[in-house]
């Protein structure tokens, strides 16, 4: 009972949803929307389980004066203040707390919730910079491609990028030529010749690269997004689709049941 009934419920629900895709006729056609509504309702109620965990977890900390008990007190206090503010508005003032005139929306949401949320979101600006700095190293051909694609698309998106990009890339090529030239001094024979030739090629490339970027950077950035980027994403998506369908079938037929243990 404890194991079979849930497996059966999963099986039936999953199969009905699949059938609903192929058969528009009643009663199958509307099943998906109906089930979705039910899911939303059940999801609302499960929040109570979560709150029980959150509050108990922090209450324990306060009771035992464990490390961070003061923060836990802040958490519980702000939870209840918000809760009473929101529902209080509904119960005592008979208006939806999400009404334009509701103090909950005008003060709590605008001056407390939004600043917290958007500040946390804005930290991404810092993290995206530090991640790029740390991870984009030209260790091998693939990582070189990765960072070049990133640089081209980044510069192609901002006003003035087209004017700056040629100089940056010309500078990189110059550095590269210097690097090859320096290496050539340490070696001898054919290897030395190869390095010198490489240095010369890099130097020659500076002009065409400069010219192309100055005139076509935006087009190049769009091309990278539309062709190679799109191709790889499609491949990844086809893989995810197959893997996901197989995973779903394993769940429906009860082969995969980690979630029930």
């Amino acid at each position, binding site marked *: 009972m404890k194991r079979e009934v849930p497996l059966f419920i999963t099986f039936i629900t999953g199969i009905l949803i*699949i059938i609903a*895709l*192929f*058969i*528009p*006729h*009643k009663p*199958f*056609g*509307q099943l998906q929307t109906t089930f979705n509504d039910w*899911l939303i309702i059940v*999801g609302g109620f*499960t*929040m*109570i*389980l*979560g*709150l029980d*965990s*959150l509050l108990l*977890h922090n209450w*324990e900390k306060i009771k035992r004066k464990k490390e*961070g008990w003061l923060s836990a007190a802040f958490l519980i206090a702000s939870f209840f203040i918000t809760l009473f503010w929101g529902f209080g508005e509904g119960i005592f003032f008979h208006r939806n707390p999400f009404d334009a005139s509701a103090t909950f929306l005008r003060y709590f949401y605008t001056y407390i919730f939004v600043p*917290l*949320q958007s500040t*946390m*979101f804005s*930290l*991404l600006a810092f*993290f*995206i910079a*530090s*991640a*790029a700095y*740390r*991870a*984009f190293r030209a260790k091998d051909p693939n990582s070189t491609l990765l960072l070049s694609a990133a640089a081209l698309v980044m510069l192609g998106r901002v006003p003035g990028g087209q004017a700056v990009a040629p100089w940056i890339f010309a500078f990189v090529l110059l550095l590269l030529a210097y690097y090859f030239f320096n290496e050539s001094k340490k070696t001898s024979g054919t290897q030395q010749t190869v390095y010198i030739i490489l240095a010369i090629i890099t130097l020659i490339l500076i002009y065409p690269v400069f010219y192309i970027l100055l005139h076509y950077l935006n087009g190049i950035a769009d091309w990278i997004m539309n062709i190679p980027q799109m191709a790889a*994403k499609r491949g*990844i*998506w*086809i*893989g*995810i689709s*197959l*893997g*996901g*369908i*197989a*995973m*779903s*079938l*394993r*769940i429906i037929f009860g*082969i*995969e049941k*980690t*979630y*029930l*243990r």
Partner: protein
Amino acid sequence: MGIILPILIFLYSPFKGVKAFDTPDDGGGSITIKWELLKEDSSVMRYDVYRYESLKDTGVLIGSVLRGSNTYQDIGTKDGKQYWYRVAAIYPDTVLFSNLSSPAVSKAQWFNSKTKASLFILLFFGIVLFWFTEEAKKGKRTYIRKIAGLEAVEEAVGRSTELGKPILFVPGIGLINDITTIAALSILKRVAKKAAEYESRVIVPNFDPIVMVAAQETVKEGYTESGRPDLYNENDVFFLTSDQFGYAAGVDGMMMREKPGAIFLQGTFYAEALILAETGHSVGAIQISGTTSVTQLPFFIAATDYTLIGEEMFAASAYLSKDPLMLGTIKGEDLTKLIFIIIIGIGVILETFGIHIISNWFSIF
């Protein structure tokens, strides 16, 4: 509006070709009305569609569409009843009525023909999977290539234990009905099992209460399988908040204070992916990430040590459990991929010569 005037106008009208028919591939209750666009469509403001329940009826305005479109779906019909339609092209200063359509009756269909490709793929895929699981039952072994991110699980747990630090497992912000989350839970089980062997602590902060319940059971099961149910502490698998960035703020704080030695970011992630991964990196933890959210993969690749890319996550439960039945399904996936590559190959060649059979077959519209 009477019917005489429209008919009079119609006699001189160039607006013809209105057809009404049962909307295909639906559950009934809908008729599609289609007309030929007027030559001077660009000076039309909109098209109004009128419905007539009988030929004597005066007609009811049921809706309108913008210029440039030549179809309208009446979604308020009763199945089995006859309806007639007329379209009026509205100009800034005048109105042009079309012919009255021939009667149409709506009904429900038993098969949605737009899904034929899906049905075929699903049936084929189902049979292949069934076949390979049967083979597996007979004892046939499946080879599976190394997946670096999964090989590293043990190393990460071990190193974290050596440093005497806990392990943090972040199951993302997907709900339990997200299959990626379920894939993440099977990785969690492996982590819990290893952690129990090393007598390490696993912390799991949650975004969704049901995922929390499932994670509690999963961790308990993992500890039990390793013979250390005594080490399991339900307070280590807890709920934070269902707000995306509130969750990120909470997990970030936890990373700074608990200083985990290993961090697993497994599941569905959106913008918070990089916030978590960069903070995790800054506390010096070894990080193994995995997600099927393609937009977040670049950030995981950049900021974490190992990343399970898309499908690799779904293969994880088979890979880690070494369960022959599950491995069989992996083999089925691969065969299907091969077939797709062949179909795409043939399709491309035909397409080059202007034959669209295969690409049309995959049309969903």
